[in-house]
């Protein structure tokens, strides 16, 4: 038998294809792999019944294992959170090999870091951030803490919709993974790193880290630096108490108002006023100059 020669690239492709789950007997067909993480892999699939593309997350774990419990929890949490900023779940099921999977809306778009490659406006970045806060605040209102907020877990859809993704280690009120460190360093609250109990303020910390990342860290305007510093306070009690409070402070900055997190000097206040009403000030100044010139020429003529 002549064996087909496979280059290293084709080998990589086939090795990936070989690990795709078998959906025989189910209404879904895998199209391609979207991503792979510790808990499972996410595939682009086709819902054969409705003829629409979906995203399917398949557990890496065997039935009954911890990973499967987490995937199940994630699906249930997403099903609870009906919000434009949170991906809806359509279905949950089991493969022939016993692995759990859930089906969700397929989001076409880019991750926040990819999207921001073409965005320079600070105001637009902050607008995205406020919408992330909206979704997170909604989850908090339903007793869910995300616990892994970071730029890679935020997606911007084709039509500008902002979605908070990957609720795999989210925690509902009363549940939790004490003694296990889960999350992403650099965006994780100190109490989360110490595997202590966490609440919504752990997400406020992560949001502060995302804000700092968005604004370019130390290069951020002082009020924004102060907002992220307050959100990222080591003590949870020193942070904004809710994602909404954090979002509101950012919105105040965006509107050109003073922010809660920063007491500004007279010079800063004057500068902010001048920036906010720059055009109006220029126009009034132009009018006054005209008037002075008019008075001068009128005097000279008479």
């Amino acid at each position, binding site marked *: 038998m*002549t064996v*087909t*020669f496979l280059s290293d690239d084709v080998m990589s492709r*086939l090795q990936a294809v070989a690990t795709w789950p078998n959906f025989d007997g189910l209404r879904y*067909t895998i199209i391609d792999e979207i991503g792979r993480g510790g808990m499972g892999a996410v595939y682009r699939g086709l819902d054969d019944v409705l003829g629409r593309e979906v995203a399917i997350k398949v557990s890496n774990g065997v039935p009954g294992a911890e990973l499967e419990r987490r995937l199940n929890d994630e699906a249930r949490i997403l099903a609870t959170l009906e919000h434009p900023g949170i991906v809806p779940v359509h279905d949950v099921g089991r493969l022939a090999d016993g692995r759990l999977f859930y089906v969700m809306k397929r989001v076409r778009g880019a991750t926040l870091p990819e999207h921001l490659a073409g965005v320079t406006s600070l105001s637009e970045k902050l607008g995205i951030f406020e919408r992330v806060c909206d979704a997170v605040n909604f989850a908090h209102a339903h007793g869910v803490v995300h616990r892994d907020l970071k730029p890679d877990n935020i997606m911007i859809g084709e039509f500008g919709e902002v979605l908070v993704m990957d609720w795999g280690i989210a925690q509902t009120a009363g549940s939790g993974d004490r003694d296990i460190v889960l999350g992403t360093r650099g965006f994780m609250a100190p109490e989360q790193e110490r595997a202590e109990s966490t609440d919504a303020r752990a997400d406020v910390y992560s949001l502060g880290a995302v804000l700092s990342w968005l604004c370019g860290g130390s290069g951020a305007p002082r009020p924004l630096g102060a907002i992220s510093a307050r959100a990222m306070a080591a003590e949870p009690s020193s942070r904004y108490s809710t994602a909404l409070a954090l979002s509101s402070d950012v919105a105040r900055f965006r509107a050109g108002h003073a922010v809660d997190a920063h007491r500004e000097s007279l010079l800063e206040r004057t500068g902010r006023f001048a920036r906010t009403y720059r055009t109006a000030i220029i126009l009034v100044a132009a009018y006054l100059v005209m008037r002075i010139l008019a008075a001068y020429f009128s005097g000279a003529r008479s």
Partner: protein
Amino acid sequence: MASAFPPTRHSVIERLRKDDAAERSAAFGDLVEGYWQPVYKHLRATWRMTPEDAQDLTQAFFSDAFQKAWLEKYEPGKARFRTFVRVCVDRFAMNSRQASGRAKRGGDIRLVSLDFDRAEQEVRALALSAPADAEDFFRHEFVRSLFGRAVTEARAEMERTGRLVHFRLFERYDLDPDDHTSYAALAAEFGLTESQVTNYLSLVRRTFRAHALIALRGLCGTDDEYRREARELFGLEIE
């Protein structure tokens, strides 16, 4: 069509230990088919042998193994069968070097036709250099050979069942890494709907996978080893 799970097939060791000479010979033929390419490339890359020496030694290795039946001495508790084969090759190569400095073609037994010219073309195409880890390299080449056979089998099955278009799609989308085409573009090109492209590709991938599993089953030393290999290669938990 091949199903997602392969039919029951005995391990290579069980088949090699059969009293029936014909069955034993067939089992050995399967083993050679699955291992000769990794063995040849291992000798070329790790042992830095010339093509001629590597060809002679590969042939000699399998002939000697068949005549003296030393692959049947495999002990599952010590290592995977694949590792055992690689260690045997290393010992054989070392002994051959010490004995004459050039390996001799062992016996006259030609179990299967080994297309060394083609294997050498692959060696050149891959520009193989001395691997840092011989075991990883051997495994990689073993998988390449396994997948190559599975692709060939999948093509044959698609031709047999009148589904050549299915295989053409597979060739374009999965076997041509330079062709960054999309399902929509393939659908337009082949006069199909995107759903059909999705389903046709899915069928060929399942067939490829099933043949790879069947071949793997015949190349593992034990059932446990097969389960482990299947889990690592296909993410499958096989009962």
